[in-house]
């Protein structure tokens, strides 16, 4: 951080209030219309386009590969019917991810005892750069409570604003801020270098 201009401290993460994954554009809209009318081909194209972000989000929120696979399946089985309620023209991917997030949260709530993320299932990093830090970060996220993890994932990984996260999680904006602060405190405590 040798650059001393204020702009040098602009964060590298997603901006506040961004529309997470708003890409896809008119093609997605046309595919969504076709899928709502029963086109399996259109549904298949949407699946191929969006399965990775839906799956990743579900995994990060549920902490379980198995649950993530179930959420991915359920979302696309239910999509044709859910699209009948889709009114956010031009923001298909954002809408889909919010539906996937709420489906994931329903799955979490349906569990009698919230399952902590299984660190053993966290995938191996794709390169050796920062491998130790990534493993430690994955383990720290795994150790975090579900309440804090969901806010951290939505706000810091997916780029939701507090208002967006609060709407998905059915909590207040103030609660979202507080939980994010606590999540950061937890992570920093777990990942701070040993003195």
């Amino acid at each position, binding site marked *: *951080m040798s650059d*001393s*201009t*204020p702009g040098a*401290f*602009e*964060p*590298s*993460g997603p*901006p*506040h209030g961004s529309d997470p994954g708003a890409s896809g554009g008119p093609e997605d809209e046309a595919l969504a219309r076709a899928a709502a009318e029963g086109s*399996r081909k259109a549904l*298949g194209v949407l*699946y*191929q386009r969006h*399965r*990775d972000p*839906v*799956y990743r989000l579900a*995994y990060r929120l549920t902490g379980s590969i198995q649950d*993530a*696979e179930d959420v*991915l*399946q*359920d*979302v696309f*089985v*239910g*999509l*044709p*019917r859910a699209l009948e309620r889709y009114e*956010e023209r031009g923001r298909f991917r954002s*809408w889909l991810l919010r*539906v996937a997030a*709420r*489906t994931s949260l*329903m*799955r979490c*709530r*349906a569990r*009698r005892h919230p399952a902590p993320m299984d660190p053993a299932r966290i*995938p191996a*990093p794709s390169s050796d750069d*920062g491998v130790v*830090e*990534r493993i*430690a*970060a*994955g383990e720290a*996220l795994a150790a975090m409570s579900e309440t804090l993890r969901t806010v*951290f994932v939505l706000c*810091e*990984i997916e780029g939701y604003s507090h208002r967006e996260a609060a709407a*998905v999680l059915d909590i207040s904006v103030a609660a979202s801020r507080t939980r*994010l*602060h606590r999540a*950061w*405190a937890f*992570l*920093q405590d777990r990942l701070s270098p040993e003195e």
Partner: protein
Amino acid sequence: MHLRDRRIIAFARREGSSRSRRRTAAHLERCPACRARLGRMAAIRDAVRDATAVQAPDRFDDVLARLDAGEVVMLPAAEAPPPRPRVPRRAAVALAVLALSVAAAVAAVTVLVPPASAPDPGGAVTAPAAPPPAAGLAVPLASDSFMVRIVPPSGSLRVRVGVTSGDVVAVRGVGAASRSRFQAVGAAIHVGGVSGGELRISVPASARRVLVQHGDAPLVEVVRGRFRIHAPASLEGDSAVFLDIGSTAGSGSDAVQPGGSP
């Protein structure tokens, strides 16, 4: 004096007023320790993102198979419904009492009112009544229970709940349905003579498989917490399935809660 975590988090998320952001940026410019904390947080966020960047399996064939099998999955809305406005405690109690009174009056009317299709003896011209809701099956998602709602004059229903594990399923009649006939037969609960009200079916989360039938026709299956709808369904509200189901004749009595080991 260093920046508080809250302020660094807000700055990193581009939150706050432009004045606040300028002040934070100015502090960061002259404070290596806070700059390091900001950089550390960015590194942690990137590490978490990379550590959880899983790749989805391609199982679209499974999606098609479930659709071909007629499975219906009701997804939640993209956002939670807006919160209801808060009511002061004393007013809330008064409203609750009022609501109970109204509910009792409605229940009485529901039981006593003649079928909407009954002929008008006087032959007078009246405003067309709203069509009564059909008997149906509402399935609140992410819940251990669901509800069969029977509204006169749809007649009676016969619902069979089969349990294939050792779990306990409870069927409870509410309103007019409390006069229905309930009978535990092996691992099933037979309900007959339902002429109105609600049947509330509680399914333990641990139940491996629960089957709700109307006559011999399967209506809903709950397999390890997942609902499978066998009859045409439509949306009711935000998160429920509503099915039109036929009716049969009968009369009713008490509810039972059998242990369901086959």
